[in-house]
């Protein structure tokens, strides 16, 4: 299946081949949108695969290749968005929500515990308060 989509021969060096495979799995096919450029025979994906292949062969680093793509196509080409000032709130929001939830929950529990400590209504043998 992979061969049908990407007819290019693999790198002789398995390290380079792995980098190539990893990179093409993290770039979005803008023409097909839901797929990586590794998953589609679309013309666009063919061209970008060739570009990645040539840059890997030329000794460029993964980050240089990602930057090359982002400069031309924008962040949208990265399937895993980068952390930046613009989207920091998206990355941080879940943590903030979780922290707020824990604090609120803790306060509710501790308040109830205090109420319970102050409550001297006797309980029966089953631990039930008389109404």
């Amino acid at each position: 299946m992979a061969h049908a989509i990407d007819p290019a021969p693999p790198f002789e060096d398995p390290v380079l081949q792995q980098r190539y495979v990893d990179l093409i799995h993290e770039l979005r096919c803008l023409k097909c949108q839901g797929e990586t450029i590794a998953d589609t025979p679309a013309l666009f994906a063919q061209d970008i695969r060739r570009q990645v292949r040539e840059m890997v062969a030329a000794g460029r680093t993964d980050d240089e290749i990602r930057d090359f793509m982002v400069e031309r196509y924008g962040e949208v080409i990265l399937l895993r968005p980068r952390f930046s000032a613009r989207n920091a709130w998206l990355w941080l929001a879940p943590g903030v929500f979780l922290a707020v939830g824990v604090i609120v929950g803790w306060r509710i529990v501790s308040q109830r515990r205090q109420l319970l400590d102050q409550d001297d209504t006797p309980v029966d043998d089953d631990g039930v308060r008389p109404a």
Partner: protein
Amino acid sequence: MIRINRFWLPLAGFLLLAVVFAIALKRAPNNSLANLPSVLIGKPAPEFTLPAVGDRDTQVSISQFRGNWTLLNVWATWCVECRVEHPLLLDLQREGKVTIVGLNYKDQDELALEWLRQLGNPYAANAADPEGRAAIDYGVYAAPETFLIDPQGVIRRKRIGALTREVWEKEFAPLIGGAS
């Protein structure tokens, strides 16, 4: 007092989210990725030097057109939408406000020349990019795509998909009018 605050808090949260979603929905591109602003807008048009379509001895580069408002049109004979926008390009060429340069994308010269013979040639020059290499520098992922380049060689506007009269009048023409 505290009770009232507690009661309103979830509602306020809900309204805040509703406003955020409403803004996001309004701003969301209606044609998904196609309407995202290009990262190239405001940047110098990437230089290319390619053989002219049908004349491999002549070189076409985008910097040749510095000094004019230039429309760089990425097209191909296999591209259906290109046929749709072709009459508009002919009109724009006649109106003479922009110089139209073609980037013939992943195509064959013979087919391209035949197309121009049949449908008319709005292009001041046509660069052949059979491997789509120059197109990558322009962030092209489909044809047609059209870039408006100002006389200083800076990309000012980009259209993905067929250019229409409406889009031209609304998004392209005002830039030319305002600056010259």
